[in-house]
């Protein structure tokens, strides 16, 4: 049990902090959330700066300890998060790095880490949400290409993406987990329609994707044909295990801000509310330790996060919803004001127990895979 960082890692942290202090003031102003091209340019620009400074592909090449330091320091310094590079850096990139052929790694990884290309995710379908393996988007072989027809939903940043990590059914007759393949879909191909999807928060981070006989070269398939489910599990492992690290740091900062606001508006004097904030402090402290625990454990499995990620994801998503419910108590009637950041965050947080596997699905995974209880039937 060692929570201290090595001298080298501490040197890395110091150097990073110096670099951030110098780099952040040179960033252009953040674009309006509704300005999609502006956001794309901003996020890619930041990634290019990271790349030039040597931090480009750190998300999936550095040691777990170093990666935690990176996420801690960037969040603390108020640096931009991955933004439009979310799928490229945290989902598709790591998957290609592990499962891709050499020429695939060469083609796709460079542009991701250099901030040149944006990826989006085409997994969920209208009728395949929790039951992801029931997906029906068809890919029919036609010479050296697949002809893909179907629809996807909850595709983030689709409007400005160059590539889409796409799950398709290549064998409709096989059992549902065994007929799936993982493709890299170029978003400029003919037959793609993107329709923005408005969330209850009023924003359009997501889109629906309609695919009408879109040609995708067979060479764009990562992993073997019909082996896409296994490849997908690798991607989801990354998603569930480590994609939330920066957010936990952000939640701890939010807690401090809540306490300041409560002190300013007098609600801190209510011991019930004060203790709720105290409990959340213990909760997010423990979640940070749980990340360190999971990341250390992952060293045993070669860096691929295990199902322990489900334990973290389940606890974290409920803790974060509780955080914003408590924020609403701090705000009182001001929690009805959409110009208060926490009000908007509260709305967004409603998806946490649904996206990337609902809490019900996480509990099933924990019960079946970690505890060995019988499968649902």
């Amino acid at each position, binding site marked *: 049990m060692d929570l201290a960082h090595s001298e080298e890692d501490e040197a890395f942290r110091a150097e990073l902090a110096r670099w951030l202090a110098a780099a952040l003031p040179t960033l252009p102003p953040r674009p309006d959330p509704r300005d999609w091209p502006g956001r794309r340019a901003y996020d890619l620009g930041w990634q290019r700066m990271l790349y030039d400074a040597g931090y480009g592909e750190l998300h999936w090449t550095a040691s777990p300890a170093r990666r935690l330091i990176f996420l801690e320091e960037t969040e603390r310094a108020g640096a931009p998060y991955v933004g439009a590079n979310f799928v490229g850096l945290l989902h598709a990139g790591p998957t290609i790095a592990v499962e891709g052929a050499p020429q695939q790694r060469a083609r796709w990884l460079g542009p991701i880490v250099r901030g040149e290309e944006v990826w989006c995710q085409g997994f*969920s379908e209208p*009728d*395949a*949400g*929790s*039951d992801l393996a*029931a997906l029906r988007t068809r890919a029919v072989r036609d010479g050296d290409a697949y002809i893909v027809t179907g629809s996807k*939903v*909850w595709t983030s940043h689709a409007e400005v993406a160059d590539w889409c990590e796409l799950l398709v059914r290549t064998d409709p007759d096989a059992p549902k987990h065994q007929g799936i393949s993982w493709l890299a879909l170029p978003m400029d191909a003919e037959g793609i329609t993107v329709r923005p*999807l*408005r*969330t*209850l928060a*009023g924003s359009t981070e997501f889109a629906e994707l309609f695919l009408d006989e879109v040609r995708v070269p067979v060479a764009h398939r990562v992993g073997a044909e019909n082996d896409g489910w296994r490849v997908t599990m690798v991607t989801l492992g990354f998603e569930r295990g480590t994609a939330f690290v920066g957010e936990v740091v952000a939640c701890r900062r939010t807690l401090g801000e809540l306490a300041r606001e409560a002190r300013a508006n007098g609600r801190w004097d*209510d011991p*019930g509310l004060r203790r709720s904030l105290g409990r959340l402090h213990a909760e997010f402290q423990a979640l940070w330790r749980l990340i360190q625990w999971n990341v250390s454990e992952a060293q045993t499995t070669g860096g691929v996060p295990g199902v322990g990620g489900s334990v973290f994801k389940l606890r974290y998503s409920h803790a974060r919803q509780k955080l914003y419910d408590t924020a*609403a108590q701090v705000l*009182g*009637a*001001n*929690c*009805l*004001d*959409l*110009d208060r950041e926490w*009000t908007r965050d509260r*709305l967004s947080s*409603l*998806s946490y*127990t*649904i*996206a990337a596997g*609902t*809490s*019900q699905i996480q*509990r099933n995974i924990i019960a079946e895979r970690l505890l060995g209880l019988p499968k*649902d039937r």
Partner: protein
Amino acid sequence: MDFRLTDDQRALADGMRTLLARIFDRDALRAAVAAADATGSKGAPERAAMWKPLTEAGLFALRLPAGDGGAGLGLPEAVLLFEQAGQALLPGPLAVTHLAVTHGAAADGEVVACAGQPPGMAAYLDGADRVVEYGDDGWREAAADVWDRAAPVRSADPLTPLHRLPRGRLPSGTGAARRAAGRRPPGDAVLLTAAEQLGSAARTTEMAVEYAGQRRQFGRPIGGFQAVKHLCAGMLVRTETARAAVYAAAVTEDFREAAGAKLLADEAAVANARDCLQIHGGMGFTWEADVHLHLKRAWLRAQMWLDAREAEEIQASAL
């Protein structure tokens, strides 16, 4: 003792349901949301389409004596109508207008906004004929300059436009000032808000059960999974417990019982909307689903007249 609804009460609730199906069905709801969206939640309720038929149906003058143009009915009947309004997500300053008419602070047919509810704010200020407030001496007209000095707030509930009242110019009888002085909000205002919450809780239960019966995953309706079934069961339990509390408080007209009923109804409306959203999965997170409208309205109403802390303190004072 017979706690069941009388035939007349049943007919009254059915009539309201029929009326709302006509003047505010789901298409009208979504049209109202789209309109509010376009204007930044500034829209007032459509008078011809909504206020007139509601007035004619007697929603506002319900409790006035028949001689004064009312229906001479009581709080239980008002609760049944406002429950239906909550079911339908009917927008507009319904309860405030009913209260102002009931207590002689406005004429039937007017649209009445209330300064100081939610605390520090006013809902539906634009388009109101009259602004009232609740003070030491009961319901009264708010100061004439309330319109000029209030600033619009970007409202979390798209169908409830809000203004913030200037600090230090809060009507004395409402919100924080009232609470600081230990004064009680009006019991019927507390209870009618609870009735709307009850209606919302019942509706989100229905929506969840309906969706769980239709949506298939893993080869069967998700309503066949215990995790979903038990969420739905919990929603019904919250609804029916709140119903018993709200109806009883309408009969007894006891302030403390009304406060307890609002505590349970607020919780039922918010928790049921959350569970309904969870059962709807990603679909529930979209703007097009109605779930979020229930949740946002339930959050808003939970801030009206009494929040949970205040209601709990009132209960504790009975012990």
